[in-house]
């Protein structure tokens, strides 16, 4: 398997996304915003469509659309008096509707879309991996730097607000990080499955961990393991890589849940 360059590149990109997605998703789950990744993914789809229409690299337009969408969701949620689920729904459906209209206008409503919706990690190039590695490193460094702040506002947002912690700025930073993660993960698991890689490893880790920090570290390990195992299985079983990665993460959750039930008896 490793003698094929496309698999080496796929594993490298998968490893970065496998770590970054749960690292960012961890805080979304703690703040009960698990579906925000899905909402951003739908806006990223509109970005991909705009890229196809304008003949610009879809990953770049998706990145811009995802950041704008992520920040918009956060602003709507926190300042517009709109309930979180309604803000998500508004951005969610506007994104997918805009995407469909733009893709149709670009004449690209065909199988080429599949790679953005469900990933196409086996076609990544050295340039793609370099971009994923650089942006992934920046994302992980930001999470590392802000870990305590994100954890603190997850534990007690009201207390942090009273103490003068800039909650709004931190929420926007988290939304922007989620947007970058969605855009980076697009080639690996696809727009429709990216939220799963942000949430499932965290949910599985929380079932067996004993502290917030151990949950964080375990979710990164599960994300990495799911990406590498999923790619390996997809190589030998000739299965779609994005779906296989997410199924491995879902399987890990089921195993962790079963372990917890058995331990509880």
């Amino acid at each position: 398997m490793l003698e094929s360059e496309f698999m080496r590149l796929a594993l490298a990109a998968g490893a970065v996304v496998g770590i970054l997605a749960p690292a960012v998703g961890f805080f979304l789950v703690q703040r009960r915003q698990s579906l925000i990744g899905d909402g951003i993914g739908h806006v990223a789809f509109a970005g991909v469509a705009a890229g196809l229409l304008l003949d610009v690299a879809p990953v770049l337009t998706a990145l811009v659309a995802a950041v704008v969408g992520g920040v918009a969701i956060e602003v709507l949620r926190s300042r517009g008096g709109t309930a979180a689920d309604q803000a998500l729904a508004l951005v969610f459906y506007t994104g997918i509707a805009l995407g469909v209209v733009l893709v149709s206008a670009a004449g690209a409503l065909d199988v080429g879309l599949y790679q953005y919706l469900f990933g196409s990690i086996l076609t990544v190039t050295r340039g793609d991996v370099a971009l994923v590695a650089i942006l992934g490193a920046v994302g992980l460094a930001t999470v590392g730097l802000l870990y305590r702040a994100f954890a603190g506002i997850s534990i007690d947002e009201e207390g942090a607000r009273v103490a003068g912690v800039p909650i709004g700025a931190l929420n926007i930073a988290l939304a922007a990080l989620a947007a970058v993660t969605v855009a980076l993960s697009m080639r690996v698991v696809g727009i429709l499955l990216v939220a799963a890689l942000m949430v499932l490893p965290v949910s599985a880790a929380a079932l067996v961990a004993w502290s917030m920090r151990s949950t964080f570290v375990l979710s990164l390990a599960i994300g990495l393991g799911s990406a590498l195992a999923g790619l390996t299985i997809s190589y030998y079983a000739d299965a779609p890589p994005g779906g296989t990665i997410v199924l491995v993460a879902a399987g890990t959750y089921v195993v962790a849940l079963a372990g917890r039930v058995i331990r509880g008896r």
Partner: protein
Amino acid sequence: MPLAVELEGVAFGYRPGQRVLEDVSLGIGEGEFVAIAGPNGGGKTTLVRLVLGLERPMQGSALLFDEPAHRSSRRHALGYLAQRSELGADAPTTVREVVSAGRLAAGGLLGPLRKRDRALVSEAIARVGLAEVADRPLRTLSGGMQQRAFIAKALAAEPSLLVLDEPTTGVDAESQESLAGLLDRLHSDLGVTILYVSHEFGAVEGFVQRLVLVRRTIVFDGPPGDLPGVWHDPSHVHARE
């Protein structure tokens, strides 16, 4: 005595025309231990939100350490225990992790906690008697112990003003007395100003220096011993009106 809190002629409502509080004037000196009581819906929590700068008065002024409360430069020195304090995060979170969150404003947002911050966290945990369970997940502890953990979180900020909003909600009678004793010790040992807000002030009546009864406005302000007998049940404030 310098004032920690000063409300002058404050009126407030959440909607136009509504008056949750009216003509409230209140000064709380630094180092005082004051209970604010009154019936549910009487405006206690709103008063706290004004003191903390989370709301701004429609009329009058709310000062915190001589600055408008909503833009006080000493917010990092506020310890706040919200009504029904509970863990926001879903992950298992240890007592130490909860208390460490109390150093967020004072200790800076970036990077790991420094040595002094970690020492303050350990000290706060020990002060509320949770040292032995410091590394246990909060949700595995009793309601009273969880409440103590949140008090330790507030203490970790080295607060000049500690505000507790209905701290005894959902806590059994024994834990309520234990909490009152703990607050009395903290007041004596640290000299911190404490604002204890509750519809039932019986647990702290023996410890506080002042009792303030609120029902839209202040209807009593003085030592608990001066409180007319009929008002010992704060719901009687209704009857009086």
